[in-house]
């Protein structure tokens, strides 16, 4: 199989990640639930991973790295944890349902007012629209760093500056870019950084992070055991424990630790250059195929994700043809970004998404192009 759905998850993991997960599943206990060696080994591993994440993403301290089940839990924790009755929040057409649905829910409950920055037909938003949308009671501005549909990357720094100048917190959804592009909370002015470990970071599924600036105060989403301050009726107020009720995913964190080390060894720039070469070659040649339409802005910074349609064929049928005839795995449909599909005019047809990754080759790209030429010619 040729796997081109790395934006959903990177299927192939390094031997180091697999070994780390296996070792954790056979050797570590429950962090914070004992002072014997197997429990301590879990606590040490988790703390070392906090240090690695803090270093990799410019987080102000290891205690500000919150482990979650993935980007979805990180985003829900952030959104429900900072917004209060009467607040105003701003998101954009680029956002994933993991951002949209928590916000819609709060809006529907009458807790918040909500506005969206519109995307143009290339899937770009404008910071001028944020400046116009900010209100005195704007508490949170959410930005999608890399679109999971178009692959376009938005520079967060100017949006963060506008948000801060207005007294708002700034959230970056880096689900598609963590592990692929340099991200520094400090340099970019991020208050809440959310990502999963199983996409570009190439770690296991079931692990993600919410990273906090010193300004960000987040109420818990989950309540439960923490292994400390047992007599307190509420969650302990200190981070990370405040936001980490229940047993942490030790094997997942072990895998994330190994993935971060592996990425450091290979070099994030090396991975980015490889994926850019594959995506760039694909875009160059695909744009010459009659009947293909590509979506996005191809001039700026991009991830390895490209979306397209073939003639007026339903995207699901094209994806199925690629899977059945050519053994190529791509993602059809709406990709959990309904607002962006509406902006691009692809709400009915959906789109066929190819997302290239570290383990893909140029030969695989050529195979996909040949398959698309055949489908488009029919």
């Amino acid at each position: 199989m040729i796997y081109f759905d790395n934006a959903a998850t990177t299927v192939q993991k390094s031997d180091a990640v697999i070994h780390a997960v296996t070792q954790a599943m056979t050797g570590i206990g429950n962090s914070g639930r004992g002072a014997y060696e197997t429990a301590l080994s879990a606590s040490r591993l988790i703390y070392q991973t906090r240090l690695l994440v803090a270093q990799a993403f410019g987080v102000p301290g290891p205690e500000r790295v919150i482990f979650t089940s993935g980007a979805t839990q990180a985003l829900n924790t952030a959104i429900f944890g900072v917004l209060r009755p009467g607040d105003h929040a701003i998101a954009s057409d680029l956002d994933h349902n993991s951002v949209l649905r928590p916000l819609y829910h709060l809006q529907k409950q009458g807790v918040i007012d909500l506005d969206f920055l519109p995307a143009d037909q290339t899937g770009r938003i404008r910071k001028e629209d944020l400046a116009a949308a900010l209100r005195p009671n704007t508490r949170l501005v959410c930005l999608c760093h890399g679109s999971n549909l178009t692959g376009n990357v938005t520079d967060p720094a100017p949006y963060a500056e506008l948000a801060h100048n207005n007294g708002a917190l700034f959230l970056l959804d880096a689900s598609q870019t963590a592990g692929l592009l340099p991200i520094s909370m400090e340099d970019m002015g991020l208050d809440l950084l959310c990502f999963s470990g199983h996409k570009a970071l190439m770690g296991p599924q079931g692990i993600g992070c919410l990273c906090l600036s010193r300004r960000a105060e987040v109420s818990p989403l989950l309540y439960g055991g923490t292994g400390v301050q047992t007599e307190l009726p509420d969650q302990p107020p200190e981070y990370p424990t405040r936001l980490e009720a229940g047993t942490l995913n030790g094997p997942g964190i072990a895998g994330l630790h190994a993935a971060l080390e592996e990425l450091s060894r290979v070099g994030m720039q090396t991975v980015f250059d490889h994926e850019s070469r594959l995506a760039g070659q694909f875009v160059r040649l695909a744009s010459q195929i009659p009947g293909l339409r590509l979506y996005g802005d191809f001039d700026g910074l991009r991830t390895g994700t490209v979306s397209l349609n073939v003639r007026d064929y339903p995207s699901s049928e094209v994806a199925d043809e690629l899977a059945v005839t050519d053994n190529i795995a791509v993602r059809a449909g709406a990709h959990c970004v309904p607002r962006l599909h509406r902006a691009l005019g692809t709400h009915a047809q959906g789109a066929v998404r190819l997302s290239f990754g570290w383990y893909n080759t140029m030969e695989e790209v050529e195979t996909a192009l040949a398959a698309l030429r055949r489908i488009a010619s029919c």
Partner: protein
Amino acid sequence: MLRPKRNTLVVTFHTTAEAMAMEVLCREHAIAGRLFPVPRALSSDCGIAWSMDPADRPQLEALLQKGEAAYDEICELLL
């Protein structure tokens, strides 16, 4: 029979992450000690604490005054 008791410096923490940071800090500065269950005499908590020789207390407190680690309490106990 339990081990013979001796005077011990105990540091407690708000979170497990703080305890881990203390272990790393003490290892870096060659302060001998170990993590162990929070003594019931100090807290009904089920967390972990750091135990060490009280003779090394000045060295530890010098680090803590520089803000090198977060903690809850420091005390000496016969453990």
